[in-house]
């Protein structure tokens, strides 16, 4: 005890702070990564002027955005126009709060009893993530409507239609894992993936749910509005979609929200399908979170790779794919999983 503050409280506050800043740094790293990977794929150099190898480029971008003038279109709804980016960013950060990212630890003896590594440990964690990610759509719709611009409105409408359509497949791919684990707690699901089959293959749900993982990845890309599903901001048609009219820090908040959402989707995939912090070989106690980080960035790299490899779908193809292929596939996957759980005792 220190001035009446327990060590647990200090650790909890530190974890919350670390998660918050780590997410912002992740977003900055992702911006750099995106530009560098895109450059490699397109045989360009990418950013290389600011700092060594262009590493300071995200910082320069942020500075530029802060310096810019905050513009508001004539006829925009003042309250909703400014509420939209805040809502987007808040939802993005809030969803990450319930994601566990490391094994229980005492911080090398600092604490008497081990605590969970997560900003908030909730036993209905998966539902919280699902609920908050369904709130994220409002930021986009709101921005589209409040801007009083036809490009923004079209972008916002498209995005809400897309997010509703793919949320179903997204949720059903969760459900198959919930069935296998018999738990809604992300920590519980990760703990069940500890150990190895035949002493070599890690017990990840990826191997029991290969289709579930695929459906999750596809629906996750659509949920975060990234290529090849980046209709809300299809540049050729809609200028920049829902954030056409935003500038300066309001734009930066949308940008931040997009990358934080990507990180959340990747982190949930890691916890649900890739065993969280359980790796192919164990790391020393207290460093398990490194596995988590490696896997999250592997998935993020995959997303960036996909963006610069695949062209955008057509809008009707997107809807057809979502409703006629992805959703039935997810339902089938759920049914087969349920059968396996009941009759084969998985």
């Amino acid at each position, binding site marked *: 005890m220190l001035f009446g503050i327990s060590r647990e409280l200090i650790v909890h506050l530190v974890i919350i702070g670390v998660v918050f800043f780590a997410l912002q740094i992740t977003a900055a790293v992702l911006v750099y990564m995106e530009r560098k990977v895109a450059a490699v794929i397109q045989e360009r150099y990418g950013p290389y002027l600011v700092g060594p190898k262009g590493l300071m480029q995200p910082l320069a971008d942020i500075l530029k955005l802060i310096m810019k003038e905050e513009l508001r279109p004539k006829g925009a*709804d003042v*309250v*909703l126009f400014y*509420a939209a980016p805040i809502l987007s960013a808040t939802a993005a950060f809030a969803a990450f709060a319930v994601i566990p990212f490391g094994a229980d630890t005492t911080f090398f003896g600092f604490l008497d009893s081990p605590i969970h590594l997560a900003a908030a440990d*909730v*036993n*209905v964690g998966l*539902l*919280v993530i*699902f*609920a*908050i990610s*369904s*709130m994220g*759509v*409002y930021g986009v*719709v*709101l921005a589209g*409507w409040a801007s009083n611009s036809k490009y923004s*409105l079209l972008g*916002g*409408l498209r995005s*809400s*239609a897309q997010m*509703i359509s793919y*949320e179903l497949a997204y949720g059903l791919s969760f459900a198959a894992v919930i069935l296998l684990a018999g738990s*809604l707690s992300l920590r519980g699901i990760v703990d069940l993936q500890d150990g190895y089959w035949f002493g070599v293959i890690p017990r990840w749900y990826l191997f029991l749910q290969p289709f579930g993982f695929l459906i999750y990845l596809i629906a996750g890309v659509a949920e975060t509005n990234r290529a090849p599903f980046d209709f809300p901001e299809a540049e050729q048609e809609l200028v920049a979609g829902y954030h056409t009219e935003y500038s300066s820090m309001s734009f930066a908040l949308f940008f931040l929200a997009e990358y934080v959402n990507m990180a959340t989707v990747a982190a949930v995939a890691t916890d649900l399908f890739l065993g969280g912090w359980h790796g192919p070989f164990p790391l020393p106690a207290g460093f398990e979170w490194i596995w988590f980080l490696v896997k999250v960035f592997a998935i993020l790299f995959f997303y960036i790779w996909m963006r610069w490899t695949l062209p955008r779908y057509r809008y009707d193809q997107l809807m057809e794919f979502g409703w006629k292929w992805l959703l039935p596939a997810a339902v089938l996957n759920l049914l087969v999983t349920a059968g396996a759980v009941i009759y084969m005792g998985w």
Partner: protein
Amino acid sequence: MDAISFWILATILVLASVLVVGQRNPMHSVFLLILSFAALAGLYILLGAPFAAMIQVIVYVGAIMVLFLFVVMLLNAPTEEATSGDRIRRMFGAGPRHFGAVLSAVFAVELALALIRLASMPMPSADRGAPVATVYDIGLRLFHDYGFAFEATSVLILVAMVGAIVLARREAR
């Protein structure tokens, strides 16, 4: 702590609900309604029902209000014009509105009676150690004990959906 949270959430809930009715811009109404749903979810958490809270957010905020929003945006509902003195006359003039007034009066009386009875009833103790309803329990109740009612409700909703599509569909030929 719980009491403070309750009063904050309750204030938001009541204020937002009242303001929903008072908005001229339907878009603002929709967002105030979302706010009140979110506050209600917070109250569920305080009551020790996190599952109900999350379902409240997923179903009402995540699905139903998005559809509301869609309708408001696609129909481009205009902002209500500010009306002058004849507003009150209009409100009580039309027959349906008369009916509405009677209905709300009945409802108000009912609510008052319920509150009076509630005051004389013993309140459940605010014991935080009491077991909360788990997802497992709810699932068992819903699909086992109340299985028939559940299925009947879903058939009802399906019928309503098919009916809506039949009514809204334009004839091909």
